[in-house]
């Protein structure tokens, strides 16, 4: 029940998907054949077709021995619940090559539902016959069952496992390259079609020393194709495909490597019965490759903006925003695309203003490795935050790569971006930082202090003021000047001291003389002259004794001078009263002679006391 249902379902989907599936019409043939050898030319079509037309001109080079024999196959698959089915129609011809050469089979055509479809074109290389024309092909087990050639098999023969019939080699797409230029290295196993390979025993694939390698993904199963090498047809299996980037200069050699294969060989018939039991035995065959050398030339002197890229690249850039506020994050996206050693390309440096907060650039690779080489994109995202408002320039990035095709450096540049930074709102900043930010002084570099300018203050070499005659002379001169001044001053002082002493000594005498004069005036009853002479006597005396010039002498300065000399207050009072009386009496009417006598004796005793006390 379920089965019927499924069948219906399948049929239903076939109908539904028939429209969706594109019509594919392909032509297949071995790439290399010998002259006179039969081979199959098969066409596959995923729909029912009619009116198949062989490639035009095929009869010129090939004999059509048989065909077309048609076949039909149906396949359906259920992957994750998705069912796909396919019906394939096959048309097979048996051909035989007439002559040597490389021939291109132009597209064949077929009609499907009134429309004409064309197949692909293929190339067939025809070489000279090496073995008997009827030699069957051994390893090329075809998928199509009813093969005329296969029927001829069964006449086993042991082919010698020499280096001509079984070998492995590394094929380099280029032998002379620049450092960093990519090479496709293919490890190929060449097998004479007559040697049946049972399997691989041990496979040591080559290590490419001095190269940066990227493996190309190829099917796990080794597919053998027919290829002509050295004018012979081989079954060729690609074991490994690698993209190489030389990292050293000079001759780089890929060291030989070994591998063992299991080969079926027929045992020589020893008896009659052996013939019935097609007895084979498996032999281990060890083969080793020949060393392959690659000449690597160094790339010429690279400019500063060279980022290590060798190949053909292009760059584009994109900035996330140009009008921002402070502390906004800005991303500059740089995309490097192209083919070459894109994984080895260094990150170009972005010279941003030094007060920007700059984060490490984020680098993502998107690289695909195919048999034509490595290509893809490298995306570098520079993230930075401007901290202060202003207009800034995000500089252009110079990207220089080496193009091995013409052997020159090529530079691509991104545009320069203008960044206008406005001050962010204060609240926001406060919220984020919580307090005012203080910037430390950023040390951008170190250098010596700048040269000194102005007067060079030159002096003869080795000259110092110390130790010169002038230096000592200044000492001696100043001492001499001091001594000179000292003696002059002392002499003067001594002289001055003598005069004062004399006058001091004489003062009493002079004063006494004046007093005597006053005494005569007293006798003469000359009132005015008497008082005046007493005053003069005191004036002269005090002037000499106290060292005060007569012009500066008055009562106050005299009293002060006396007090300074520790004269008793009583004496000073007496002196003051005498002076007062004299000054008063000078201009007053004459008083009695007793009063004048009394004044005279008082003046005499005061002066005597003064003399005693001043001396002390």
């Amino acid at each position, binding site marked *: 029940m379920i089965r019927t249902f499924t069948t219906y379902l399948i049929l239903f989907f076939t109908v539904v998907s028939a429209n969706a599936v594109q019509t594919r019409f392909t032509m297949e043939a071995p790439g290399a054949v010998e002259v006179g050898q039969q081979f199959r030319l098969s066409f596959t079509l995923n729909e029912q077709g009619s009116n198949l037309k062989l490639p035009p001109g095929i009869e010129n080079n090939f004999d059509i021995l048989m065909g077309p024999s048609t076949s039909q196959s149906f396949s359906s698959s259920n992957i994750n619940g998705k069912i796909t089915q396919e019906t394939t129609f096959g048309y097979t011809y048996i051909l035989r090559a007439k002559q040597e050469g490389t021939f291109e089979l132009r597209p064949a055509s077929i009609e499907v539902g009134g429309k004409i479809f064309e197949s692909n074109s293929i190339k067939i290389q025809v070489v000279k016959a090496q073995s008997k024309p009827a030699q069957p092909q051994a390893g090329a087990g075809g998928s199509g069952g009813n093969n005329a050639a296969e029927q001829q098999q069964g006449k086993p023969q042991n082919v010698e496992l020499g280096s001509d019939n079984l070998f492995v080699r590394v094929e380099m797409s280029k032998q002379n390259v620049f450092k960093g230029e990519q090479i496709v290295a293919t490890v190929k196993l060449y097998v004479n079609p007559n040697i049946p390979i049972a399997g691989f025993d041990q496979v040591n694939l080559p290590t490419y020393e001095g190269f940066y390698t990227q493996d190309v993904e190829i099917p796990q199963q080794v597919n053998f194709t027919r290829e002509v090498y050295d004018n012979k047809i081989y079954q060729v299996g690609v074991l490994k495909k690698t993209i190489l980037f030389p990292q050293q200069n000079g001759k780089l050699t890929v060291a030989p490597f070994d591998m063992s294969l299991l080969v079926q060989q027929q045992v020589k018939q020893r008896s009659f019965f052996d013939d019935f039991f097609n007895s084979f035995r498996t032999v281990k065959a060890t083969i080793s490759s020949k060393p392959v050398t690659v000449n690597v030339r160094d790339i010429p002197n690279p400019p500063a903006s060279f980022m290590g890229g060798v190949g053909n690249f292009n760059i584009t850039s994109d900035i996330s925003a140009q009008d921002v506020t402070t502390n906004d994050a800005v991303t500059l996206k740089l995309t490097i695309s192209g083919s070459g050693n894109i994984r080895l390309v260094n990150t170009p440096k972005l010279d941003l203003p030094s007060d920007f907060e700059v984060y490490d650039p984020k680098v993502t690779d998107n690289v695909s490795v195919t048999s034509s080489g490595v290509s893809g994109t490298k995306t570098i995202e520079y993230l930075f935050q401007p901290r202060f408002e202003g207009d800034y320039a995000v500089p252009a990035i110079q990207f220089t790569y080496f193009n091995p095709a013409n052997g020159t450096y090529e530079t691509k540049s991104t545009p320069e971006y203008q960044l206008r930074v406005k001050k962010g709102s204060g609240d926001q900043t406060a919220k984020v930082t919580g307090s005012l930010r203080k910037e430390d002084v950023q040390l951008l570099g*170190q*250098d*010596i*202090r*700048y*040269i*000194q*300018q102005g007067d*060079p*203050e*030159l*002096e*003869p*070499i*080795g000259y*110092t*003021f*110390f*130790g010169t005659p002038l*230096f000592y002379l*200044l*000492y001696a001169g*100043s*001492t001499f000047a*001091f001594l000179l*001044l*000292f003696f002059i*001053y002392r002499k003067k*002082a001594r002289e001055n001291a003598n005069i004062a002493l004399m006058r001091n000594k004489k003062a009493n005498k002079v004063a006494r003389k004046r007093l005597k004069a006053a005494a005569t005036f007293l006798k003469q009853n000359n009132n005015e002259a008497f008082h005046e002479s007493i005053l003069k006597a005191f004036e002269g005396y005090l002037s000499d004794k106290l060292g005060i010039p007569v012009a500066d002498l008055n009562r106050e300065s005299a009293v002060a001078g006396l007090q300074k000399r520790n004269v008793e207050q009583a004496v000073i009072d007496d002196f003051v009263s005498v002076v007062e009386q004299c000054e008063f009496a000078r201009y007053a009417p004459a008083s009695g002679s007793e009063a004048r006598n009394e004044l005279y004796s008082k003046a005499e005793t005061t002066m005597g006391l003064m003399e005693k006390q001043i001396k002390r």
Partner: protein
Amino acid sequence: MKQYILIILFAIPGFIFAQDNSTQLWEKGNAFYTTGDFQQAISNYEQILAAGQESAKLYFNLGNAYYKAGNINKAILNFERAKVLDPNNENIDFNIKMANQFVVTSIEPLPLPFFLRWRTSVINMYSSDSWSYISLVSFIIFLILIGLFIFSRIVMVRRISFLTGLFILVFSGFAFSFAAKQKKKIVERNSAIVFCPRVTVKSAPAQTGTDLFLIYEGLKVQITDSVDTWKEIKLADGNQGWLQDSCIVKI
């Protein structure tokens, strides 16, 4: 007497001319330095030196020019020469420090007792000439104070001037000795800079001497003795040994 006056009269114009020429060279050297033509600046400065004139500023600028031209040894040599003439200049010290970053040999100087350190730093406060002037001026102040002491009648003034005068006389004496020390440094020049890229220092003044240690260019060493073409040197860390004098240049 008359002869001397004549000589002075003739010497003065020549001296002034020489000064003028040197000043021109100086200005030109500075201009070359500013435009980045350090080789030209060096040749101008060196011409002033060749004419027999020197100054701390000249050595400083010459050292700068050598530094910029990439000749670190000569830069250090000239900075050290500038330091001898002007021992307490912050700019010179800074540039010596910068230039010494290129010197391979790093030396931990022996720690000095604090009083020696103080003494050195006090002596290095001024150059020989400055100390000479200080000594002279303080001596004259001393004389004035002694005059005050002798002639003053006021007891307090006499007492103070006597004590201060005595102190200043001692100070003048110290300044004099410091000036002598600084002068000795200029005259003797017993420091040197190593110019050979790499020298093995020997234990004796002969090639047969045991190899003691290796020093590299740019290092400042003290010369303590001399035999023929050999010099005994002492490093700041106390190591001593002999090397050929062709390898060092006196500061």
